[in-house]
């Protein structure tokens, strides 16, 4: 017998996985929207963010959440390097070049991670590991609550940045019409770089949170990239709201699939939903036009 409470418990797990996905996918979507680059190395930034927080927490014995700003800084800097040394040089050329460049970055970062932290699976040590808060009759882990609250704060800050600040507005202008933005004096190179920096920062937060509630290994990046890409197509290319909603939906779907059908169904269900949406609504949930 499966009780109603366990159904809701799985829903909560789904939302938590969806939070990590939302942080991954909104950055992926931002880069695509502004620069039209499909950054297949994006997942590596999440992995690196996780390891930075793991490494420093183990090294110092301090609370890993204290190191989120450092995870943000490192992932953001690496993202800027991806742009400056890579995508910036070949933007506007064929997409295939971008794909190969990103695969190159993926291997470099993966191997670096293996060299520094070995291939073992790691979990970021959290002091709240065995602590729960009872909410409406459910046990919620403190770490899980931190993940949900942290994601909500980061996404709200991100929406504020995009919708209300001067730099966010310039980024939206570039995404809506790059050439017109150039004509009215927007420094598009600087906006592109900022876009990579912001996406990297969000990936860094995602990694630091993920490392606590799930686990890390050096090869996890590509899987996260594929999920981010799937979510962005599912939610509608270029729509940040679509990326967030899509992330939560696919996170929940995957957790139910794992619970009812088994772990091997997790990706199968996510891609089945992607295929379904591509058939019914090719532009994605929140995608505009055709």
């Amino acid at each position, binding site marked *: 017998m499966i009780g109603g409470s366990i159904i809701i418990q799985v829903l909560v797990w789904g939302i938590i996985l969806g939070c990590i996905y939302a942080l991954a996918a909104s950055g992926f979507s931002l880069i695509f929207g502004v620069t039209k680059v499909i950054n297949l190395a994006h997942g590596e930034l999440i992995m690196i963010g996780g390891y930075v927080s793991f490494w420093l927490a183990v090294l110092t014995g301090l609370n890993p959440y204290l190191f989120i700003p450092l995870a943000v800084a490192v992932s953001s800097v690496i993202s800027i390097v991806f742009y400056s040394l890579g995508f910036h040089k070949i933007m506007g050329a064929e997409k295939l070049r971008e794909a190969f460049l990103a695969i190159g970055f993926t291997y470099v970062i993966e191997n670096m991670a293996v060299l520094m932290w070995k291939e073992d699976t790691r979990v970021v040590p959290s002091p709240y590991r065995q602590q729960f808060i009872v909410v409406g009759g459910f046990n919620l882990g403190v770490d899980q609550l931190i993940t949900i609250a942290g994601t909500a704060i980061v996404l709200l800050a991100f929406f504020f940045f995009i919708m209300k600040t001067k730099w966010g507005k310039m980024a939206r202008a570039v995404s*809506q019409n790059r050439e017109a933005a150039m*004509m009215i004096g*927007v420094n598009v190179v600087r906006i592109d770089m900022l876009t990579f920096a912001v996406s990297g920062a969000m990936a860094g937060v995602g990694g630091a949170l993920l490392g606590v509630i799930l686990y890390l290994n050096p090869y996890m990046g590509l899987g996260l990239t594929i999920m981010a890409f799937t979510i962005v197509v599912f939610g509608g290319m270029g729509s940040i709201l679509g990326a967030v909603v899509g992330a939560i939906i696919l996170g929940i779907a995957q957790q139910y699939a794992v619970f009812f059908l088994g772990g091997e169904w997790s990706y199968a269900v996510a891609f089945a939903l992607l295929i379904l949406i591509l058939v019914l609504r090719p532009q994605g949930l929140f995608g505009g036009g055709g």
Partner: protein
Amino acid sequence: MLEVNQINVFYGDLQALWGVSLRVEEGEKVVLLGSNGAGKTTLLKTISGLLRPKSGEIRFFGERIDRLPPYKIVEKGISHVPEGRRLFPDMTVLENLMLGAYTPEAEKRMGDMLERVYNMFPILRERRNQLAETLSGGEQQMLAIGRALMSNPKLLLLDEPSTGLGPIPMEKVLNVLEQINKEGVTILLVEQNVHYALKLAERVYLLENGRIVASGSRDEIVKDEKIKKAYIGI
């Protein structure tokens, strides 16, 4: 103020402009006339830095600008109203205007510039919180011009503002251009509609197949037999 000297511009292997030269003096209203595909848009895009000439040079107040990125050229005082208006459709009228004034100099004077544009186009003040895509064609053209004026340019480049506009909104646009010019902004207008072009122009350049084939004052051009035949249709 603007000197284009012998520029050659390519799209890949395809040459679009052949040794094009052109001058615009401060305070003038110059029209570049030519049919579709003559290279008018290419020339404007090269002036505003979106395209690089393979050879030749472009000077603005004596300083070379043909190797500068577009935002630097805007900072120097050249603003470009693109063909088809190219607004930011999912942003409000006010956001579109403010985006035109994010260069360091213009940002300091944003309030004044906004006031100037609103006085020129009162309808934009009324619609400032509407999304740009909800405006009519004429209003969109006014917003495109207003957005370009927000950077307080010395030279305004306009690419086919008559596209998709009926005669009445277009007359309004021409009146506004006269007014902007009286306020000291030099105008380089690209048009294929001869009627509108000659209404505004003091001097005219004629571009055909990527080459300047004729130039002169408005009156000289009107009398030119070749031009009469090809463009005025009499």
